[in-house]
Structures are given as structure tokens and as C-alpha cells.
């Protein structure tokens, strides 16, 4: 579920890929984890509102967030984090997202498109089924409209989907990296998702010959929230 927060026209400077801490001021539900959580920012700089996207887990925080009346105020701190695009636009970027780990990449990709960047961006988006893949339609539209952006969405359980899936099926393994992710020597690789997905994919990249110094990782905020 996506949530939009107005920032009252105040400047809020952040780099795509960074996160914020949201504190609920008067939550309907409470638990021992408190009233604050960290989220990657899914919108891009310059938008009038700030967007986060999260799976609704049923936690006290998320139930309170979902039940906030429209127009409610929250406290927002940040931005935090150093997971953002390398400054060198000549180096292609390869994003590998697992599930809701897509949020920092949505921000990066949208920002690059708005800036008319010529940096080559490839997104490998890993999910069980198309229904699980947040922002998939939007990302596919961006690919059609932007020659610098390419998406490879891959589903591991497409046969259990109610939708017809004509795209790639299967895992990201070393053969996939060698076959599909060109410019391996020049690219910088960014991996985001749940912790064990991130470590497994970083390991796959290293075994496929990617220099470890060219792999950036981000275990997404909100896991366990």
C-alpha cells in the first residue's frame, strides 16, 4: 500500500534511494516497538508530496497508519542513508529488487527519467507472481517511454498466478547475470530487498564475476515492522 505525505510546500531535500523515519503522533494502536518506523522514499525529489510504499503486515504501527484520517499530521525525520545512485552517469546502473525492495529504485528511476538522464538503467525485479510486484505496470510504461531504461521482471511462481505472465520466469542466478546483464565490467549493481535475498543476490553477482566494490546493497527498511 502506498501513502502520500504533503510537505506543506516546504523544501525537503533528499537523494533518490534515501529513507525517512515516520512517527505517528496519536496512533490508534500501539505495541512495544513504538510509534516510529523507517521507510525508503518511493517518490522522487521535486514532487509536491512524499510517497512511501509498504506491505500491510497487520502490525500496530501499520494498522494505525492505514486508519489515519486524510489530512492527519505525522512527524517526519530524515533523510537518512547512503544508498543512492553513483555520481558517474557514464557507468550503467543495474538494480536488483526483491519484492517491496523496489521502493528506493522507483525513486531513482523516476528521478533519472525526469532529469532526462542518458545513464543506462536496468531493473531486475524479482517476485513470486505478478500480483506481488508493486508498481509493475508503471515501471513497464516507463520502459516503453524511455530508451535508457530497461526492466526484466522475473517471477518464480508464475504458474500460481491468476494473471497470464508472458515475461521471464525463474531466479537470478550466475547464468542469468552472465546472459542478461551486459556491461558487467562497467556497471554498478544495486541490490535491495529482504535481508537474505540481498545477501544471496550479492553472492550471485560476485560469483558471476562482478567486482565486490561495484555492488551496493540495502536491506529494506520496514522488514519486521
Amino acid at each position, binding site marked *: 500500500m502506498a501513502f502520500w505525505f504533503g510537505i506543506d510546500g516546504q523544501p525537503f531535500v533528499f537523494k533518490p534511494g534515501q529513507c525517512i523515519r515516520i512517527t505517528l503522533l496519536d496512533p490508534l494502536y500501539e505495541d512495544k516497538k513504538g510509534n516510529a518506523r523507517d521507510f525508503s522514499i518511493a517518490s522522487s525529489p521535486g514532487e509536491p508530496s512524499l510517497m512511501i510504499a509498504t*506491505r500491510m*503486515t497487520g502490525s500496530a504501527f*501499520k494498522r494505525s497508519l492505514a486508519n489515519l484520517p486524510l489530512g492527519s499530521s505525522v512527524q517526519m525525520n530524515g533523510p537518512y542513508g547512503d544508498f543512492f545512485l553513483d555520481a558517474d552517469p557514464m557507468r550503467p546502473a543495474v538494480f536488483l529488487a*526483491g519484492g517491496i525492495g523496489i521502493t528506493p529504485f522507483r525513486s531513482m528511476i523516476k528521478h533519472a527519467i525526469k532529469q532526462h538522464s542518458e545513464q543506462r538503467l536496468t531493473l531486475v525485479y524479482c517476485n513470486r507472481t505478478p500480483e506481488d510486484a508493486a508498481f509493475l505496470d508503471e515501471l513497464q510504461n516507463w520502459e516503453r517511454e524511455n530508451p535508457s531504461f530497461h526492466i526484466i521482471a522475473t517471477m*518464480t511462481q508464475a504458474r500460481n498466478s491468476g494473471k497470464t505472465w508472458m515475461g521471464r520466469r525463474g531466479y537470478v542466478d550466475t547464468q542469468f547475470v552472465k546472459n542478461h546483464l551486459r556491461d558487467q565490467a562497467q556497471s554498478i549493481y544495486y541490490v535491495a530487498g*529482504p535481508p*537474505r535475498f540481498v545477501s*544471496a543476490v550479492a553472492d*550471485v553477482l560476485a560469483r558471476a564475476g562482478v567486482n565486490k566494490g561495484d555492488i551496493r546493497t540495502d536491506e529494506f527498511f520496514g522488514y*519486521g515492522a
Partner: protein
Amino acid sequence: MRIDYPTRDQIRAQAYRIYLQRGCQPGHDMDDWLQAEYELVRLPLHKIPQLHSFSAWASLVR
């Protein structure tokens, strides 16, 4: 028969282990499943046939 990838039942067992390790917090089934898949896929191929299915594993931990 050569098995290249873990079966759905083996992934289910691993996802359930992750759920237990997280303290049985609900709502992260998609993340647990994705993590289970990638944990098992990174195993050496010869290890995969040795993994318990969910039903076999559940009977062991009962």
C-alpha cells in the same frame, strides 16, 4: 532424476523456518518466501535433494 531447483514444498518448509526465526510475526509471507527461494537456490546442487519437504520437516519438529 536431476533436480536443479528446490521444490515448492521445500521452499515452503524454509519459508516457515524463517517465519519462526522472526518470532512468528505475521504479514511477511511474500518476503519470507522470496528469502527462502534465494537461500535454497544458493545451496550446492547436491544439497537440494537432501532438503526436507514441508510435511516431512513439520513431522520432525512436532
